[in-house]
C-alpha cells in the first residue's frame, strides 16, 4: 500500500468525486490510497483549497500523490493547495492534465502496478488531447 502512488480526486461536485473514488476502488481495491473532495466551502459546486490539502495528506505516500481535477477552478485550487503543503511534500505532488474520471481510473491502475509518480501522470495524460 505504501509502495503505490496515492490518488486524489478533486471535482467541483462532491458526487463526482465520490463516484470516481468508488470506481477507482472497484478497480484497484485497497492497493492504492485514494482520497477525494468536491464542493466549495459552503458545500455548493466548486472546490476548496483546505479540503484539497486534507485529501492530499490523506492519500499521502512516500512515492507521491497524483491529483486528478475536472474544470479550471479545480486545477487552480489544486495547484494552490500543493503550494500550501509543507515544503518537503510539494515536489512529490502533481496535478494531472487528464480527464477526471477516466484519468483517475488509469492513474490508479498504473499506481497499483508500483509505477513512479511520473509514470502514473504520463499514463493518465495519454487520455488528454492537449
Amino acid at each position, binding site marked *: 500500500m505504501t509502495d503505490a502512488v496515492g490518488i486524489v480526486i478533486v471535482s467541483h461536485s462532491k458526487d463526482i468525486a465520490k463516484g470516481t473514488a468508488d470506481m477507482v476502488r472497484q478497480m484497484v481495491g485497497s492497493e492504492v490510497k485514494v482520497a477525494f473532495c468536491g*464542493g*466549495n*466551502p*459552503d458545500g*455548493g*459546486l*466548486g*472546490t*476548496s*483549497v*483546505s479540503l484539497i490539502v486534507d485529501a492530499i495528506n490523506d492519500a499521502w505516500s512516500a512515492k507521491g500523490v497524483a491529483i486528478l481535477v475536472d*474544470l*479550471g*477552478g479545480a486545477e*487552480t*485550487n489544486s*495547484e*494552490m493547495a500543493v503550494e*500550501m503543503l509543507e515544503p518537503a511534500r510539494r515536489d512529490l505532488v502533481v496535478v494531472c492534465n487528464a480527464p477526471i474520471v477516466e484519468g483517475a481510473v488509469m492513474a490508479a491502475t498504473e499506481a497499483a502496478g508500483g509505477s513512479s509518480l511520473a509514470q502514473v501522470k504520463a499514463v493518465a495524460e495519454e487520455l488528454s488531447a492537449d
Partner: protein
Amino acid sequence: MSLRPETFKSLIKLAAERVIASAPELTSLDQAIGDGDHGFNMKRGFEAVLGKLDAISEQPFDEALKTIGKTLVMTVGGASGPLYGSFFLAAGEALSHDKHLPEDIADVFGSGVNAVSARGRSQAGEKTMLDVLVPVLETLKNAAGQPDLIARVSTTAAEAVERTAPMRATKGRASFLGPRSVGHIDPGARSSCVLVQAVCASLEGKQ
C-alpha cells in the same frame, strides 16, 4: 506621507463591503458566460475577510495582505479564489521586501498582477480580471505622482471593464463558449473594477 493603519482598515472594509454588495451583479454576469457563482464566491471570500478585519488591521501591512490572500484562497471556492488570493499574497510579499505604501504602489500592485498571471497562466486580452488589473497597473506607473492619479486609476478600471465585452474568452469557463463569449462583460474583470474603485473611493474619502 505614509499609509496610516486606520486608512488601511477602512479601505479594506469598504472594498469588502462593495464586493459583497455587487454580488448579485457579479453572479448575473457569470450566469451569462460562466457558471453563475462569481458573486457567491466573492461574497463568501470577502465576508471571511470582514470577519477577520480587526485582526488584520492590527497586523503590519505585509502580513495583513498575506492574511487577506490566504483567506480568499481558503474561502472563495472558484478559480477566482487562488487568483485574487495570489494577488494579495504576492503584494504582501513585495511589502515584506523593502517596498512601502503608498510610494511603491505600482511595484506592489505589479507583483500582485504577475502572480495572477502566473497562477492563471494567462495574460491581458483573454477576457479575465487581468484585463482590468493590467491597465490599472499601467496607469499606476504612467500617472505616478500626478495629483489626479486616483481619479485616473478609477476611470481606467471602469473603461477596462467595458473593453472586455468584445473580447473572446480564452481562459476560464467562459472559454467554453468560444465565440459566444463575445458581447458580455467578464465577471472577474467587473469584480476587479469594484475592488480597485473601492480603494480609490476610500483614499479620496468619498465613501
